[in-house]
């Protein structure tokens, strides 16, 4: 009787241990920092920001175009490193005419003059949106920059990249998404 109870206890402990091991092995250790997001394949949040000229930028009004949102701060070194890639991507997409993706920089926690100076010195004439009220940041859950999001012409979120991106990665990703749409 006692031996049976001991065997049952040992079996339960073994099952528990194996189950825990499976959970740990299957768990993604980088789940907190990868591009996993509940927004993927969902409508992009209808958020607004302020453009350089003081007018309002409404994300929902960009439907009909592929939209790339690059979250940025001028003092962030990876953002500075990434910038030439964005310039190249923007030029490449401009060459596609109306099919090309629109690039928008979303500025977080930064001084307007510093941002304008950065763009003047490093190139890039795409729209810059100041997220002074954290609407973009909180809607997209951007904890650190740089971070880049892709929204398709129907206004659906199609991709998120945490960290630096390259022009080639963005172009091939959007092309693949275009073909799948």
């Amino acid at each position: 009787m006692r031996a049976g109870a001991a065997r049952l206890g040992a079996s339960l402990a073994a099952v528990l241990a194996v189950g825990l091991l499976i959970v740990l092995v299957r768990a993604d250790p980088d789940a907190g920092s990868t591009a996993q997001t509940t927004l993927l394949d969902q409508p992009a949040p209808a958020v607004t920001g302020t453009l350089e000229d003081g007018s309002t930028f409404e994300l929902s009004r960009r439907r009909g175009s592929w939209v790339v949102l690059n979250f940025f701060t001028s003092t962030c070194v990876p953002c500075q490193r990434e910038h030439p890639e964005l310039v190249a991507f923007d030029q490449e997409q401009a060459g596609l005419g109306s099919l090309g993706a629109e690039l928008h920089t979303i500025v977080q926690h930064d001084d307007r003059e510093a941002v304008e100076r950065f763009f003047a010195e490093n190139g890039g004439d795409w729209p810059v949106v100041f997220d002074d009220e954290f609407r973009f940041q909180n809607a997209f859950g951007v904890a650190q920059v740089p971070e880049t999001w892709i929204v398709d012409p129907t206004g659906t979120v199609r991709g998120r990249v945490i960290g630096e991106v390259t022009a080639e990665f963005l172009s091939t990703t959007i092309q693949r998404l275009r073909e799948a749409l």
Partner: protein
Amino acid sequence: MRRRLSWLAVLFVTVGALAVGASRDGGPLDPGDRIDAISRRIACPVCDGESVYESRNPASEAIRSAVREGVRAGGLTDDEVIAEVADAYGAQVLLLPRATGLDALAWALPVTAAVVALAGLASAFRRWREAAVQSGEATDDDRRLVERLRAERDGDGSGGSR
């Protein structure tokens, strides 16, 4: 019987304390206090072990702003405000893990471990008590030994002295 009553008393006090603790309404009264209380339950997504309430990081500033908006908009409970933040930033911002999905392991494992440990202790105590009781009873060998010694004593007992 007395031991059972003691255990029942301990159980009663524990359950009572848990029930009072869980149902006590110690919630904040004004929006400012609510914002602070909610911010204390959300982890700064880029810091190490700091809550959004404590952290001065820009990401925490943004989340505090989201909490402020959620509270001031009205109609949302504290848990709903926190859930909105967690939906956007991920479950890693929850200082108290959710009771569903993989996060529930954080709650279930300690309880399971405690139950298993208690069951193990109870089983061990029972075994030890049984072993102690058994060791106090005379075995057949003991009886044979006593018989032999008595026989030896009685055999030369007439002339013996202590």
